[in-house]
């Protein structure tokens, strides 16, 4: 019965914390999408220079843990620029997810038939215009499922922000767990909130996917 008591009485704290989690995740993933698109375009570029930069970025970021990247930004860079906990976490999450999103976008772009780019170019469209008007809109539809998957991972990874003092879902549950000496209860409650967010998000992605399918 402890559990139900904690679950109900902690609602105001967790609602506020969930809002922080959503805000952090949304900010990070929005930036991650931009980073991902830029590096995906670099990776398919004809210039070796751009491909090299993109390869290096993706290799380094995918090859190191998010918590290391987060600490490097929050503690490491603090002597030069102090982003504060929210922006440190947002930047770390964005940079981290950006590498995975870049690969998702690259795959989506390369899955579009070559004939599409050729047809667009044969009509006098520049590479950039053809990319923007012809290739990316088609590629975007195809990357919705893997992108949704990456967003779910990003949402859950945002819990690491607790370690740079963010009062998001996990941070709040750590605090409540230790003050009430009720670890099992509060971590279970935190898990339920994450689960609810992921289920809600999955529902939205599925609806978007269905709508895109009807359109085409």
């Amino acid at each position, binding site marked *: 019965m402890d559990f139900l008591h904690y679950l109900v009485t902690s609602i105001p704290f967790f609602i506020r914390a969930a809002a922080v989690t959503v805000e952090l995740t949304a900010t990070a993933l929005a930036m991650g999408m931009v980073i991902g698109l830029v590096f995906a375009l670099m990776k398919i570029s004809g210039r070796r220079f751009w491909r090299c930069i993109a390869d290096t970025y993706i290799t380094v970021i995918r090859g190191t843990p998010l918590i290391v990247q987060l600490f490097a930004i929050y503690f490491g860079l603090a002597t030069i620029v102090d982003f504060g906990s929210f922006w440190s976490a947002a930047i770390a999450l964005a940079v981290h997810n950006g590498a995975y999103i870049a690969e998702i976008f690259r795959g989506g772009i390369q899955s579009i038939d070559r004939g599409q780019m050729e047809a667009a170019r044969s009509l006098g469209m520049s590479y950039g215009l053809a990319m923007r008007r012809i290739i990316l809109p088609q590629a975007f539809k195809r990357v919705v499922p893997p992108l949704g998957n990456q967003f779910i991972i990003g949402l859950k990874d945002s819990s690491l922000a607790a370690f740079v003092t963010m009062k998001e879902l996990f941070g709040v549950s750590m605090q409540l767990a230790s003050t009430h000496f009720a670890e099992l209860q509060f971590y279970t409650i935190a898990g339920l909130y994450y689960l609810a967010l992921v289920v809600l998000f999955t529902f939205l992605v599925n609806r978007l996917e269905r709508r895109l399918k009807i359109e*085409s």
Partner: protein
Amino acid sequence: MSLVKVRNLNKWFGRLHALKDVNLEVREGEVAVVIGASGSGKSTLLRCLNFLEVPEQGQVIFDGKVIDPRRDDLNLLRREVGMVFQHFNLFPHMNVLENIIEAPVMVKKVPREKAIEEALALLHKVGLADKVDAYPCQLSGGQQQRVAIARALAMHPRLMLFDEPTSALDPELVGEVLAVMKQLAGEGMTMIVVTHEMGFAREVADRVIFMDEGRIVEEGEPAQVFSRPQKSRTRDFLSRVLWGSGPAQDCWTPAATATSA
């Protein structure tokens, strides 16, 4: 006067020497049909004319101007050279009208209303006035290819390149596409057509060009090339396509489909 001229064109794909010293001249208003076995370099030659493939050696001269693919803005050349592909390559996320007005509006900055007006006229011309709102996936192959022709024509090109425009079509749909092409030829459009439709070549072409292993082996008026081929390789090829298993010279009829709507 020649609209497009090709001088000593050479193209390699890795070790494969795809085009070997190709020379070609096509006059304004002329319909040149390129025939030859698959792998003979026909499509490559066509794709070098709008620089979808960049030749390693030789010159492409369009309207008296040598095109340098490194210096010149190829987008300007491509506005004047329409291309129709074997697999149509319509934009699947746009409906028929949007497919046609996309390049005029985005590239030439034609006002949208004017582009739509022209697109409707073009659709009428290719017999698809009732398909304005359809998406490519809702159309048959023949209809898609006619939309693709309209899309290319919307840029008011001076030269039209057709890269095996009927090869991917079911046999019963070939006629409607060829009918549109024939009509276009009748209007005086300069056309270079790579095709296996010998009936079309015989009837519509001003000149037939036979390619083999990356070279132009023989060219001349259709009557001459088909009836009295000079080279043995041309004779071999023609005897295979005309009397072999494939459909022979009169495999299509100029169907009324294209002008009926």
